[in-house]
């Protein structure tokens, strides 16, 4: 399958890329390409210009600074999976990264690209909602930082302006006595999630200080289960509390029936995964 014709641009710096995004009509950024190229091949999209950012130095780093993990725009899924910093301090990210797509797609696909693509079945959206992450959006006009909860608007729709580049994802460093996990149901490796749940639990004086809960594949975007989160803030960790959070998360989900399962099945799996994830994460947080 061949995409429609496009003009190919390969900037060597962020400044050059921003200039192109500002000047060119109907341009798309090519990062890992593992979502964009299939979309172009199916001709769901036919942009006039592709701006390939893969040769821009300095966008491929993972670093911890000022209380946050900074993930550059070109950091690949496999880089997150194998990062010692991630494994050491960001258990939710460490759990999610190896479950994305398949090993070959993970070699190219990027965290930033996945967020900017905003597929409701994308895994990073849920992970970043649950961790309370932000994205840095850069254009020739300047830079703005926005919580992922505001960035993700609808199916394949984000707050990114046409002249902006998502240059960095910032994940707050979880406090001590925190943990998280990502539970994903998929028919086979590489399939879109039937259902997935991202949870993070931050303990404080034996109680839950903050809980982060978000869902994949059960709405027109990754769903931030804020009622479920609120039900746990300040609560004692208990089977009953986690079961209630599971029920609230299931109520927040709005799945559609497809080949992967019925509405009832998916909603039920949200409940199971959120309860199970919270139980696992809370135990790991105090271990």
């Amino acid at each position, binding site marked *: 399958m061949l995409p429609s*014709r496009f003009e*190919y641009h390969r900037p060597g710096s962020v400044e050059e890329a921003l200039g192109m995004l500002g000047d060119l009509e109907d341009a798309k950024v090519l990062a890992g*390409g593992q979502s964009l*190229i299939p979309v172009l*091949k199916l001709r769901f999209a036919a942009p006039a210009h592709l701006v390939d950012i893969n040769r821009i130095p300095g966008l491929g780093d993972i670093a911890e600074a000022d209380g946050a993990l900074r993930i550059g725009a070109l950091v690949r899924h496999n880089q997150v999976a194998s990062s010692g910093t991630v494994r050491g301090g960001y258990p939710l990210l460490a759990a999610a990264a190896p479950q994305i797509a398949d090993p070959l797609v993970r*070699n*190219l696909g990027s965290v930033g690209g996945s967020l900017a693509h905003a597929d409701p079945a994308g895994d990073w959206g849920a992970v970043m909602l649950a961790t309370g992450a932000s994205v840095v959006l850069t254009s020739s006009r300047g830079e703005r930082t926005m919580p992922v909860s505001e960035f993700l608007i609808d199916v394949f729709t984000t707050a990114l302006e046409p002249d902006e580049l998502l240059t960095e994802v910032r994940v707050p460093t979880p406090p001590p006595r925190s943990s998280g996990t990502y539970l994903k149901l998929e028919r086979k490796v590489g399939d879109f999630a039937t259902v997935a749940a991202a949870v993070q639990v931050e303990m404080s004086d034996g109680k839950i200080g903050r809980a982060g809960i978000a869902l994949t594949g059960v709405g027109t975007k990754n769903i931030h289960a804020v009622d479920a989160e609120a039900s746990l803030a300040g609560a004692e960790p208990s089977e009953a509390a986690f079961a209630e959070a599971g029920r609230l998360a299931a109520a927040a989900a709005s799945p559609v029936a497809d080949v992967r399962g019925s509405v009832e099945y998916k909603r039920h799996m949200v409940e199971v995964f959120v309860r199970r994830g919270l139980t696992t994460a809370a135990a790991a947080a105090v271990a």
Partner: protein
Amino acid sequence: MQITVTVNGAQKSVDVEPRLLLVHLIRETLGLTGTHLGCDTTHCGACTVLLDGVPVKSCTVFGVQADGREVTTVEGLLTAGALDPIQAAFKEEHGLQCGFCTPGMMLVGKTLLEKNPSPSDDDVRWAISGNICRCTGYMNIVKAIQTAGRVMAESAASES
């Protein structure tokens, strides 16, 4: 667009349309048909090649993205007419039936062994989870990759 790609060690300069996929560049422009085009939707892994030593699905990369980089295809495994240990092991262990997935399986197996010379069953199955075999020959594919690891370790030991 004029690009230069090092394919299996040889520099190739070609003029390609930006929308040409790497798999078509390899198969049609360069005539290296060992790389297969299977699903064309990033699922099956039949089109796997190494881009700067990293396995990728060449149906989901544009040829122009390989400009100035190194591509290794299954043809590149052969050294001076001799089979690579991974190729010999696939032959020895009957790691293929129809052979369609085999180039991808071997390239992924080879990169796995570079990082993990004696992988467990699970390690191999994890590594090849983006490559589909429809003859359902996974048992022997796993064995072949492990055998190649053993052979490579033995020949490294005998050389030192």
